[in-house]
């Protein structure tokens, strides 16, 4: 029973994105029932007790976040749906929105009912044009069916959902960057506190949740907490701070595997199982050299670490930043870690919003140094400089406003610690990268 998919159950059906089919499969029945029979507090309590943790990268308990809103606030309170999905190698939100948008929208309706929000801003990256158009149609269907708008189904509950398109910037995925961008300003993340629950969009209390998190809310309300908690990994009794890793998760798999894709799997599958059972192994009889476990920001696991479970705790135990987005990318043993690290540094240098000097300059330095290594012009001391820079940028060392720079530093630290011999060898022999385009003119 526990392996029966729910999030991806409908994606291969014809017209899976239409309201009619969604309703035939039981969609919105639970919402109608909740609207009649349950109070907003009941919904918050249920989501809190389910153990659901945010799927956007940080794993923060969803119900708990909702309780941070000020009590008896006169409103408005906003929900922002984070569909910026820009963490490289991650694409599960896109599949949910394109193939089964109504389960996401129903989750938004539960969330807004729970937090007493009448306006939801659905912030979607510009690159997801297809998903944007599908969602707009789905929202239009809901207005026509009387499921959105004023006094939904004769209740006191009113809700509008507005799509808001981004403009190609990774930093808009950071929740306060998203809010600034929504407000029509530069997407410069805000200093916290105040957290968005206290002062968010338009200076009002705001909850920011990821698309997959909200889709999970739909199924929790429909199938109950016993069902949700029967899936995944319970809290580690030896770790009093662990909130567990319950529920299904969408794992993305890309890079050097025979089959790439996105699968719904109970939390806690190991990286090796994912690669072998779902990815059908590494092509060309090669071996795994490294993987990233959940988007670039999480760092690397080595081949010998592949038996680590991909739950909220696992990756941290082998020195990664965390589970992140559970987007696994496989790097085979013929690939240079120097090229990989350079590619990663290039991403962060491009996407730093530039607001904090340590991040803006640090990501630039790390790119320059990895570029030097790639050209066979590296010096032994470069490795220590890289680690020193990586160690000093981020919220954790307390030098920057947002977590982008922690994520920029982590893969650098992991790469040098776990693959130091390869880096040293390349420096000693002056080996150049064999990529054709060593220089790439800047654009976009």
């Amino acid at each position, binding site marked *: 029973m526990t392996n029966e998919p729910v999030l991806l159950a409908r994606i291969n059906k014809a017209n899976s994105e239409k309201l009619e089919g969604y309703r035939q499969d039981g969609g919105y029945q639970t919402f109608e029932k909740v609207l009649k029979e349950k109070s907003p507090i009941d919904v918050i309590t249920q989501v809190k007790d389910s153990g659901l943790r945010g799927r956007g990268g940080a794993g923060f308990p969803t119900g708990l976040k909702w309780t941070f809103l000020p009590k008896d606030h006169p409103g408005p309170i906003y929900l922002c749906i984070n569909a910026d*999905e*820009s*963490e*490289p*190698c*991650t*694409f599960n*939100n*896109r599949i949910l929105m394109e193939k089964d948008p109504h389960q996401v929208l129903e989750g938004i309706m539960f969330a807004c009912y729970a937090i007493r929000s009448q306006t939801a801003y659905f912030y979607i990256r*510009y*690159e*997801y*044009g*297809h998903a*944007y158009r599908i969602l707009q149609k789905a929202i239009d269907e809901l207005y026509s069916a009387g499921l959105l708008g004023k006094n939904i189904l004769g209740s006191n509950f009113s809700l*509008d959902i*507005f799509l*808001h*398109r*981004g*403009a*190609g*910037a990774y930093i808009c995925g950071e929740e306060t960057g998203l809010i600034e*961008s*929504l*407000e*029509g*300003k*530069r*997407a410069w993340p805000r200093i916290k506190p105040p957290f968005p629950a206290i002062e968010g969009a*338009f200076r*009002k209390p705001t909850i920011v949740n990821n698309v997959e998190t909200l889709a999970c809310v739909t199924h929790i309300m429909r199938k109950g907490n016993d069902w949700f908690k029967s899936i995944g990994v319970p809290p580690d009794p030896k770790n009093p701070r662990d909130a567990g890793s319950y529920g299904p998760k969408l794992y*993305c798999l*890309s*890079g*050097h595997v025979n089959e*790439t*894709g*996105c699968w719904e799997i109970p939390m806690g599958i190991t990286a090796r199982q994912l690669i072998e059972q779902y990815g059908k192994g590494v092509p060309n009889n090669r071996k795994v050299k490294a993987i990233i476990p959940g988007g*670039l920001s999480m760092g690397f696991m080595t081949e010998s670490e592949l038996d680590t479970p991909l739950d909220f705790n696992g990756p941290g135990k082998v020195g990664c930043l965390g589970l992140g987005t559970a*987007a696994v*990318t496989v*790097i085979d043993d013929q*690939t240079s870690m120097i*090229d*990989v690290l350079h*590619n*990663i540094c*290039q*991403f962060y240098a*491009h996407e730093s*919003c530039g607001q904090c000097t340590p991040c803006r300059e640090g990501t630039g330095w790390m790119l320059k140094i990895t570029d030097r290594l790639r050209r066979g012009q590296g010096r032994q001391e470069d490795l220590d400089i890289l680690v020193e820079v990586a160690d000093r940028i981020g919220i954790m060392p307390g030098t920057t406003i947002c977590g982008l720079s922690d994520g920029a530093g982590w893969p650098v630290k992991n790469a040098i610690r776990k693959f130091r011999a390869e880096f040293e060898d390349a420096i000693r022999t002056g080996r150049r990268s064999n*990529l*054709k*385009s060593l220089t*790439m*003119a*800047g*654009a*976009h």
Partner: protein
Amino acid sequence: MSFLSETIRKQIEAYIPRYPSKQAVTLPALHIVHDELRYVPKEAIEEIAEMLDLAPSEVYDTMTFYQFFREKHNPLGKTRLWVCRSLACHLRGADKLLDHFCDKLRIHPGETTKDGKITLEFAECIGACEGAPCVLINDEHRLNISHEKADQLINELTK
């Protein structure tokens, strides 16, 4: 006489009731103009600012932050073609694919073909990594782009 057409102004105005502040309409307005004209001229910035009770510099500030919107000296071609260069695509030949597009189109990343049909740019992860290497045609994905498929795509876009 305003620079922006009546249709565009109406489209922008329709966004205003959605938000508690007019400034929030900045990005939607820039998208509307940019999609239509393929760049955002100074005149449009001034009129957007006027419609949203902002200073033109505020609109310009937001606009330039994204490095997404083109200005008059550098408009987009008919199709904006983004070639993803992030890790999943990089591992599956994105660099060679971008080189291939450059060779075939005889332009560098950031440039537009002489006939104005294609603007080629690289992009960071476009969220279709299962189909690496992949590209974005304006705002729609195309997956698993071999060099052969790249050539077909060029034919399709330059027809």
